[in-house]
Every structure is written in C-alpha cells, then in structure tokens.
C-alpha cells in the first residue's frame, strides 16, 4: 500500500514506548485493611485463572498499541491508485446563468451541477490543478489553478445563480486561455445546455460536459412597459408573457402598483407562444409596477426568476429650459414637444445675470455665448467665439457627417443618413467632450460631455441652416440631447438587463448617492469626478427595483437652496423681455418636483432565450473542443460526460489514446491528429493516477478502538450503570452493600 507521507510511519516508534510503560513496575498505593485474609484467598483464585486474567490486564495495552499503529498509518496517508479520468490541469466552467436556477432537479440545476463537478474531482490525477470559471453574464475566474481541492469545493458550493443571460462562449474562451498554460489540460463544463447565446468559437482543448436539467416547463414575463395614453393623463401597462414549454399552461397574471394588487387575470398559454396583456388606467401616483406570474391550478413552472418583473412609472418632473436666441422656430417647436417641460425664452441682448439662469434646468445658447457660463447644463448651438466649451477655429461649408457610433445614447433612434448641413462652425474637440456627430477632418458637428461639473454639449450648426429640422430625426435628437443634458434620459425609465451599469444623475448639492438594492442592501456611490453631475452604478446583479437617494452635503444644502427662493421675484422683470418665442411665459416658479426625490430603476430579465430552459445538446458544446484536430472526427466521438464519474476511468487506463476523455470526447486526439494532439497524448501517458486516500476507514477504526479502549478502562462504571439500569427496570436487584445478614442461612434451626 503506497503512502503519501511514508515518513510518518516513524510514529510506530511509539509502540516500544507504550510497551515500556507497561513493563515498568507498577507503584501501588498502600492501604491498611483490617485483615488480608480474604484478599489473600482472592488473589489465589485470580492466579488460578491466570491466563485469562493476564490477557484481560493486557487488553488495554493491546488496544493502545493498535491505536498507535492506526494513528501512524493515518499520518502516513495511505492511498489506493486508479487511473485518472481527468487531465492534470482541469478548468471547470460552471454555468451560472438564470436558467440554472430551474428547480426541475433538486434543489436546483446549479446545485446539482456543482455536486456533479465536485464528484468529478475524484477523477483528478494526483497533484492536478483546478481552475473554476463562473459563466454568468460575463465570465469570471473564481479559482485559479489550485491543487487545494477543499478550496475548489468551497468555491463551487459558493456559486450562486446570476439572474442574467449567460454567455457560455465567453467563459469557454476564457477557460481555453487558462487551459493553455498547461500541456495536459481539459475543460469540464457543468451546464444545462439551455443556452441563450449558443457558443460558436472553437477552442483548442478537450471539452467534457456534465449536463443537468430534464424539464422545460417554464413561462416567463418577457416584456413589461408603462405607456402614457394619447391624452397624456391615463397610463397603461403592457405585459408580454411567453410560454416556452411544450405543453399548454394556465397562469395567473397579477399586476401590483406600489405593492397593491391592481388586477389579476388568468391566462391560457399555448405551447411555444406569447400572449400580450394590457392593463389600462393605472392610478395616478403609482411609482412602481410589479407583475407576477402565479400558478393558477396548473403545474408550476420550474424557473421562478422570470415570473416577476418590475417597471418604473416615469416621474412627473417639470423641467425648465431657457432658450437664449433671437428666434429659431424649428428649435422652439421641437422643444415644446418635450413632455413635462416648460420653455422660456430671452433675447440674446437681454440675457444677463438678472435672468437668473440658476432657476433653469437647461440653457440653450443659439449663435451666442456669454462671457461667463452659468452653472446649469448648457447647450451651445453654433457658438461664435471660443470659450471653455470649445475653440472656434473656422467655418465649415457643407460638412459631411462622419461615421456614427451606434452605441451613442444621444443618437438612439436618430437617423442622420439623409441629413445635410449647409454651414457649420469649425470647432476643435476639447478634452472633456466626446464626439457625438463627427464631421470632416476631425472637426465634430456635435459633442457632449461634462465641463466644470456641468453637463454641456455643443452643436456646430444652426438647425435652420440644415435640412435636419425637416426630418424625423430632429425632434428625437433634440429629445435625446436635452435628456442627456438634464439628466432625464440618463435616468433609466425602461428596464435594464441584470449586470448592466447604470448612470444616475446627481442633483445639485448632492455629494453622492445611496443606492438601495432590491434585497435591502445599500451602496454609497460617489461621482466619477469630483463635482460631477452623475455617478455610475454597476452592482445591478439582482432583479427588482433599485432606489437611489441623493446624499446631501449638510453644510451646502441650505446655502444652495436660498438663492432659488430670493431670486424668484426679480426673474419676472427679466424674462418679460423675452418676446417672439413660442412659449413666452416669463415667470418661472420654484420647481414643483423635488430634485432630491429618489430615483428608481428596474432590473428585469426579459430574455426569452434565457427563459427557455429546455436542456440543449451537450454534444454541441463538446464538439467545440479540440480545435486543433479535425472537426468531423471529434464531433463523431463527442458525447456528454456520463454523470457518474465512476464510469470514466477505464478507457484512459487501457490506452493513452483516448486522452482521458472517457466518453470519447477527445477520441480524435489519438492516432495522427495535429501536433497539439500529439503533445496531449504524450502528456496523457505521463499523467499520474488518481488517488483515493483511505483516511475515512482508518479514522472510523481509530474511533472504534478508542471507544473500546475507553469502555475497557471504564468497564466498572459501565457495569455499574448497566446494573443500575437493570435495577431500575426491575430486571435485577440492586447491588447489596452487605448488611451483615445473609438471608441464605439461618443458623438457629427450628426446634
């Protein structure tokens, strides 16, 4: 029997020590008794039974010798060898996507997958290293190349389902990169193969799959939106429910407004279809809509994550825009169409400190720019002079619009493909800004950013000098741009994907945000730059409603609030000068909406592909592996790894050809594949065997011997206890202390 630590057998040297202790003369305590008459006779009897008595006396010594032997054996860590079923360097990819939360296997797919992965570790060769990659929305290395299997087990058991769409391909690429560090490596994937984004990238190393899941009964809420009615008064909730199962399902749809049940409907869902529901007349004042999909007599579905969804009702915030212009009907018209917006206008000549620019949420300067910029967000249109917003370096005639970034939020739904600009100001892009609409030769036509803590944007041309106002894109662009500058659009009103970062606006006077997660945890956020107008929040890993409350600076709050109130009367006179504008109402009142009110946003799954939990084909994942070898051969031999790891060792021990892929996943790596496969085969030949350490039976044996030794030592106490128990239940009389009168004999006979 081989040992991991044979030196520990030196512990057997304690055996002579134990014997020596028993051989040493026993020092007996002297006790004076009235007579040794009876004791002498007793000792004579004991010696008459000497062999048994001697054995009984030495039983303790024998047990202790056995204990020393077992402990030395335990310390030496004996083991049994068997052929390893896995490569020396194993990269485990555990699918943690939302579908792994399905409960069709007990307790859920992720737990079953981690258990299978832990069981598979038994086939790891001695000294093998394990890396663990969690494949959630993004791939994450949980454990990196460790031989400490306890740590691996703990990491596997610590994995949690991520309520997001998983990207297994990303994780496989990462795992492939990790596996490339070793000559003998393979990738073990534990997944349900119900993949929202099927991986397509081929990877170099062998892939084995531990598949879990057997049921696809799931219905999901795949869309939820709150829409304002045409009148602008009533609101409706639109819900889309998908039955992703192959059976008809009956479900109950419940709509809650701020936790109060608004409506419940029973839905009969055909297999593989969607159903839409509209709930009208959402009461005014409701801030959060929650939709639940509950069972209604039918069989429950096995994935609960997608049975709830949340939506935020857009807040009724009134925003004020001041347009400093000599008159631009296109722009004024576009601005007036913005919801919850009051538009104020002032002539260029009348703009000054008396206008109280701090009362407005946005100031638009068209064709002009004051010497001192207000602290509020600013949109500058065709500036005539250089300023902190940008340096005017010339004029552009018929500038062409460059390549647009499709991810640019300002350009969402904006189509500029048919837009032509007549004349534009040539500007140099300042360092604080990003280009939104690129122009010719690096001169931007629209850029935005944050300067001196205030959102700002510069449009290089007047809309009326282009055909943009005549296109559908114009009001959308104005809406997006105004929303970007006033923070309106950056506050997500629509549901977001789990894990996606959120930019939250920071109201004036706030030093940060306190974000409360759906689970109740709070996170303090600081703006990215000191004095910045927004903060980024990325811990959106839970489904539900998040709430962000501004953290106000205790010393600055009263000071910043005071001027707003005192400046209000004088604003009337200043703004009365504004004439010729579409909305010449010159009396701004203090804002009705609280700028420090909490900002809410919802994180929802809304992914029918992820909600489709019907287990997919593990062979397709297996076929991705071994990219250096020929594909068809590999796919022919590919099959998911059997769930029981005990079935795997035999092939790899019989021949090095199967390269440890027990079920044939790496069968193509044998005779004459590529160089990589050859190297792999060589590594497999030298692969150490898997070890099964025998410590459990030895520990059990040690405990047994300890118990016997203790019982032998305490046999008197045990016997007394046994007698007392028998006496209590009436089976035997209690031990008589000897009252001096044996009842057996009556010395005086009857006469």
């Amino acid at each position: 029997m081989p040992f991991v630590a044979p030196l520990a057998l030196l512990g057997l040297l304690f055996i002579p020590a134990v014997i020596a202790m028993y051989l040493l003369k026993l020092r007996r305590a002297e006790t004076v008794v009235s007579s040794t008459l009876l004791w002498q006779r007793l000792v004579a009897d004991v010696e008459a039974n000497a062999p048994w008595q001697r054995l009984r006396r030495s039983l303790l010594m024998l047990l202790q010798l056995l204990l020393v032997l077992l402990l030395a054996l335990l310390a030496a860590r004996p083991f049994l060898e068997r052929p390893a079923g896995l490569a020396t360097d194993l990269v485990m990819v555990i699918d943690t996507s939302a579908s792994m939360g399905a409960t069709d296997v007990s307790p859920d797919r992720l737990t079953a997958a981690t258990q299978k992965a832990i069981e598979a570790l038994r086939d790891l060769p001695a000294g093998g290293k394990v890396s663990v990659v969690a494949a959630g929305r993004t791939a994450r290395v949980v454990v990196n190349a460790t031989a400490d299997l306890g740590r691996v087990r703990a990491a596997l058991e610590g994995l949690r389902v991520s309520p997001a769409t998983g990207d297994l391909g990303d994780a496989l690429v990462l795992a492939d990169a990790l596996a490339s560090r070793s000559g003998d490596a393979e990738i073990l994937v534990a997944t349900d193969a119900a993949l929202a984004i099927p991986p397509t990238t081929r990877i170099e190393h062998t892939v084995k799959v531990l598949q879990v899941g057997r049921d696809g009964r799931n219905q999901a809420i795949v869309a939820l939106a709150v829409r304002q009615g045409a009148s602008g008064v009533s609101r409706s909730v639109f819900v889309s429910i998908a039955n992703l199962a192959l059976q008809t399902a009956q479900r109950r749809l419940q709509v809650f407004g701020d936790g109060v049940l608004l409506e419940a409907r029973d839905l009969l869902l055909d297999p593989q279809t969607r159903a839409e529901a509209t709930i009208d007349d959402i009461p005014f004042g409701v801030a959060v809509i929650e939709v639940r999909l509950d069972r209604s007599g039918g069989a429950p579905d096995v994935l609960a994550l997608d049975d709830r969804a949340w939506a935020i009702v857009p807040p009724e915030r009134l925003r004020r825009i001041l347009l400093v212009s000599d008159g631009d009907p296109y722009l004024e018209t576009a601005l007036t169409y913005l919801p919850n917006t009051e538009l104020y206008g002032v002539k260029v000549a009348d703009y000054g400190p008396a206008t109280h620019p701090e009362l407005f949420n946005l100031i638009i300067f068209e064709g002009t720019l004051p010497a001192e910029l207000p602290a509020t967000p600013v949109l500058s249109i065709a500036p005539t002079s250089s300023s902190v917003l940008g340096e005017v370096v010339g004029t552009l005639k018929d500038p062409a619009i460059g390549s647009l970034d499709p991810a640019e939020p300002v350009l969402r739904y904006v189509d500029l493909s048919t837009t032509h600009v007549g004349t534009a100001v040539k500007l140099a892009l300042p360092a604080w800004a990003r280009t939104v609409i690129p122009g010719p030769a690096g001169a931007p036509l629209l850029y935005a950013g944050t300067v001196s803590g205030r959102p700002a944007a510069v449009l290089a041309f007047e809309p009326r000098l282009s055909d943009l106002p005549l296109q559908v894109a114009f009001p959308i662009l104005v809406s997006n741009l105004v929303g970007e500058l006033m923070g309106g659009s950056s506050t997500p009103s629509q549901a977001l994907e789990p894990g996606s970062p959120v930019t939250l606006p920071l109201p004036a006077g706030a030093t940060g945000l306190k974000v409360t997660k759906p689970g109740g945890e709070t996170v303090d956020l600081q703006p990215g730059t000191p004095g910045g107008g927004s903060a980024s929040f990325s811990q959106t890993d839970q489904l539900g409603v998040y709430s962000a409350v501004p953290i106000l600076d205790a010393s600055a709050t009263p000071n910043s609030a005071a001027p707003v109130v005192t400046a209000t009367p004088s604003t009337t006179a200043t703004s009365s000068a504004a004439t010729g504008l579409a909305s010449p109402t010159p009396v701004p009142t203090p804002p009705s909406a609280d700028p420090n009110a909490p900002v809410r946003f919802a994180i929802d799954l809304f992914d029918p592909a992820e909600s489709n939990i019907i287990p997919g084909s593990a062979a397709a994942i297996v076929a991705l592996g071994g990219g250096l070898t020929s594909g068809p051969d590999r796919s022919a031999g590919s099959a998911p790894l059997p769930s029981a790891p005990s079935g795997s060792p035999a092939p790899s021990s019989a021949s090095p050809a199967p390269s440890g892929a027990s079920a044939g996943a790496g069968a193509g790596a044998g005779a004459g594949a590529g160089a990589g496969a050859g190297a792999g085969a060589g590594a497999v030949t030298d692969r150490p065997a898997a070890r099964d350490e025998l410590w459990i039976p030895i520990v059990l044996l040690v405990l047994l011997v300890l118990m016997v030794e203790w019982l032998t030592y305490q046999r008197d106490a045990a016997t007394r206890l046994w007698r007392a128990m028998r006496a209590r239940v009436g089976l035997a009389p209690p031990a008589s202390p000897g009252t001096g009168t044996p009842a057996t004999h009556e010395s005086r006979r009857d006469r």
Partner: protein
Amino acid sequence: MDGPLGNPQPADAAAPARTNAGSSGHDRARRVHLPSDLDPTVFDETFLRQLERLQVLMRAPVRGGLKGGRRSVKRGQSVEFADFRDYALGDDLRQLDWNVLARLEKLFIKLYVEEEDVTISFLIDTSASMGSGRPSKFLFAQRAAAALGYIGLASEDRVAVTTLGGRAGRRQVALRGSGRVFRLLSALSAIAVAEGPTDLQAAARHAGAQLSGRGVIVLLSDLLDPHADRVIRELAATGSELIVLHLLSPQELDPALEGDLRLVDVETGDGVDVTVDLATLDSYRQRLDTWRDGFADLAARRRATYVPLSTVVPLSDLMFAELRRRQVVG
C-alpha cells in the same frame, strides 16, 4: 446519652433504676448516676430500662450453682410442680401428698422444679483487626457485651467477661446480681484492643479451659483468623451453649477500594498486591458470603447460634429485633 454523667455513685445505687422499670412516664424525669470510670458513649438510661425486660434464653435446662431464676435439671424448692415419686424413708414429710394418701392409701412425695443460675461468658476478641472499621467493631463488641451482660445480671445469672488477645484468654470480671451492672460496664470500658498478632484459636482454647460447668458462651469476634472455624468447633465442644456474634465493618462488607493497591494487614503487617476493579469486588463479596456461610453451616452442625452482624446495625435493633428473631434473647 441524655445528660452529663457527673456525681458518681456506688454501683449498688443503680438498684432504683430497676424498680422503676415500666413507669415510662417517669423515665425522662429520673436520672441514673453512672460511675465516672464508665465509658459514657456506651449506654443511655432509656436503653438500660429496655434491657431489663429481656432475658437470655437457653435451649435446655442447665445445672447451675447457686439458686437463681432459671429452670434447673434438679428438683428442688419452688412453687412449680414437676412430678411424683414413691416415698422413701427419710423424705421430708412436708412434701408428702396427703390428698393421695387419703384417697389411695399410698405414700407419694411431690417434686418441684428447682431454679438455679447459669454463667454467661462473654469472649471478646481484642485482636488489632477488631479496632478497625467505622463504626469500630471493638466498640460494637463492647456495647453488645454490655447489653447482653446487663440482661444476664438482671436475670440473676453469673456474667463473666474474658478477652481474647495474643495467645491467652484473660478473665476480666465475673459478676452476679443486678446491682453489679456498673462494675460490668466499667470492666468492659477498661478493656482495649491488643497490639500485635493474635492467635484466636489459642486464646479461645485458653479461655475455654477457664470455664466451669455448662453455661452460655457469647463469642464476639470478626473471626478474621485462619483457624476461626476451629475456635467455633472447640468452644461448642465445651458443652456450653455457644452464641457467635460475627462482627464486620461496612468497609469489610463492601470495600470502597479501586485501582492498583497494596493492602497491608493491620495485625501482621503483611501486604497483598491487588488490582481492585468491579470484577475483583464482586469476587470479594462472593468469597465473603461463602466464608460467612461456612461459619453458619458449622454453627448449625454444632448446635451453636451464628449471628452475622454489621457494625452499622443500631444496638437497639440488634437487641430487640435481630437477637429476638434468632431467639438469643426473649
């Protein structure tokens, strides 16, 4: 003890205590003044009065010496009729049954039961082993002998106390008459445990040689002697009625020993190495029972009375229950 024992009085002064026997209402009011040389831990007044109602029984009438309160094998002067016999010349005409003479015209002499005394000999083992135990076996022997001796004196019997120590039996006192009870108690108080080894057989043989006539022998011993059975055999062979009170302490009946010990004999100083565990104690108890059963069988064969006793038995229980049950007293 009810109270202090000051103001010593002569031994005869104890007589009034007997006359007041049975008047329990005055028991607590009246005091018995005990002599100062008496061990105050032995008796109290109530106990003494209870003893007066007891008497040492004998299985058969014995030939005694002086006139006493016990039936004798002899015919003599008493009020209890025993038999008739033919008149012989020289008989006392006062004993002639005149009624029979008148009716049958024959001469018959009436015979009456003679009442004589007997000697109750207490043989007290004073070997060193008797001094051990809690309560002490020797103290128990003293008190038991005193109690039985008091009964004997109250029954107009002769009471003799002999100690068995070393190789000799030494007669300490021989008394008669209930008025001598305090001398008996004083004598019992004065004896002590002998030092050194004791040959119980030799001492008992020596004591047996000092006995005169048949009577009652009460042996008080722990019998922890290799030849204790011979002692019983020899004393029973003297013709006297033998009562063996076998005294053992609780420590001997149920030793509280455990572990590896060297047991040292208090008398001889010899040691025995023994490992005491529950099994050993069980064997010890078994052997003890066998040992005592052997004495009981021997006593039964020799028409002796064997009473195994533990020193934890209260003396009142011994006198009024145990010895009565065994018909040693009645």
